[in-house]
């Protein structure tokens, strides 16, 4: 446990690396089922942790359906400039937006993020998508849904529903993004930390 987490009080692991992997496997199959196959699928991860999750999902899709090339269907969608809290938060540096070579017009875009909370990030993502093209359909896959929505948005594919208090913090730590941080425990995990 990191010193900050210890100071903040209780912190509990709600998903282990194996849980995360199983949830992603299930979501991958749900995506194929809902789409009735792999036709026109594009996965767009929302930085930072949505992107590695999208890559992992694409690898699982490719494993389930050999006609899919994992690299060709994954992209990253930065939503920083579309947020509604730019003037209230410390400045955020925008991240790269990378689309698959085929573009997103008339495709089925699955947005991938780690935690669904207020829904404001997803609203920003929907606005960002409009400027990039016109997908046939947009779906949402998240690793954890912690409730407390502030907008009429819901996820199509959820790894795990986490009942939380609004003061609690849900931390997702992934090998790709967090291995260098001081709170890295050695494996992927989802942790709920008590609020201050």
């Amino acid at each position, binding site marked *: 446990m990191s010193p900050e987490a210890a100071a903040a009080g209780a912190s509990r692991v709600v998903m282990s690396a194996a849980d995360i992997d199983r949830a992603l496997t299930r979501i991958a199959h749900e995506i194929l089922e809902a789409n009735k196959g792999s036709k026109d699928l594009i996965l767009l991860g929302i930085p930072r942790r949505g992107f590695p999750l999208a890559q992992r999902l694409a690898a699982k899709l490719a494993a389930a359906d050999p006609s899919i090339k994992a690299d060709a269907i994954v992209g990253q969608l930065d939503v920083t400039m579309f947020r509604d809290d730019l003037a*209230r938060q*410390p400045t*955020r*540096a*925008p991240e*790269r937006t990378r689309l698959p070579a085929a573009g997103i017009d008339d495709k089925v875009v699955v947005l991938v993020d780690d935690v669904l909370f207020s829904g404001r990030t997803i609203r920003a993502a929907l606005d960002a998508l409009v*400027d990039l093209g016109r997908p046939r359909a947009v779906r949402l896959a998240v690793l954890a849904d912690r409730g407390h929505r502030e907008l009429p948005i819901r996820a199509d594919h959820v790894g795990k529903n986490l009942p939380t208090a609004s003061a609690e913090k849900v931390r997702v730590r992934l090998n790709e993004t967090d291995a260098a941080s001081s709170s890295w425990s050695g494996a992927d995990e989802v942790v709920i930390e008590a609020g201050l």
Partner: protein
Amino acid sequence: MRHLLSTQDLSLENAIRILDTAEEMAAVGEREVKKLPALRGRTVVNLFFEDSTRTRISFEAAAKRLSADVINFSAKGSSVSKGESLKDTAQTLEAMSADAVVIRHWASGAPAQLATSGWIDAAVINAGDGTHEHPTQALLDAFTMRRHLSRLNGTDSTGSNLVGLRVAIAGDVLHSRVARSNVWLLQTLGAEVTLVAPPTLLPVGVEHWPCAVSYDLDSVLEAGVDAIMVLRVQAERMNDSFFPSTREYSRRWGLDDARLARLDTLGMKDTIIMHPGPMNRGLEISSAAADSSRSTVLAQVRNGVSVRMAVLYLALSGDLRDPPPRLPPPRTAVDNRPNTRADETRENAR
């Protein structure tokens, strides 16, 4: 970064943050919808007391791509020609609730005065003041060099600095705010800068600047450079004769066809030629050099919009305190100021 007044006080973290943000902004310019909603409802005033084409247009395009409202003000045809003071003009803008003021002024220090006097609450961005600084031009030059360097190395430019890049800045350094801003910024980013100019066009105290100084363009080219930045001879600021004739200037300090050809014979195939514009073709730069494949003049203009978008975004969104320093300075070797190379060159010149 609340204001952007000079590159001298710009930290390495903030410089890299601006360049990285500009990198993302550049991607917007390649999209079909070249617009971001980040500054919707904010007002940016372009306050220009001096003539300008590309800087004003570039700031205007940058603000509009971020969805800000833009008000253009030029001293000609305004109440300034009736004798209105900077203070009154600023307070008028304040009353109209401007969120950012982009100011170009003939007096060095006017932007700093605006930012520190309390006349106005807006973010102040220096778009060139007298012979002092022009920070966004230096940032776009650094951005252009960084992209060039990362293309040569085949790496991603995001997060990188300019360590090891040899830059020659040639021409009218005395009157050039671009040169000043570039010297400070390039030294922060770790590049090696050499100023090349006739002694009459070098400012007093240049030996204390963090760069080398030479009077001989050919020897600098022979020593090897990765980027040559040619400065405009600012005839409008010259109230004295600084060199005998334009022909002599062009032959000794201009980047003419012969020197362009020498770059090839010296085997410097990746050296780029930069110019902040507007160019005096045939004086400091020949047409062949300006239009050659080495020239980045138009890329600089294009990058200017991205860099100014980044500056406006960072100055106007959220809470803008300097992040705590976390990057080590790129130049880890012994600090070599005042530069020994400059002293040698001076000795040779005597």
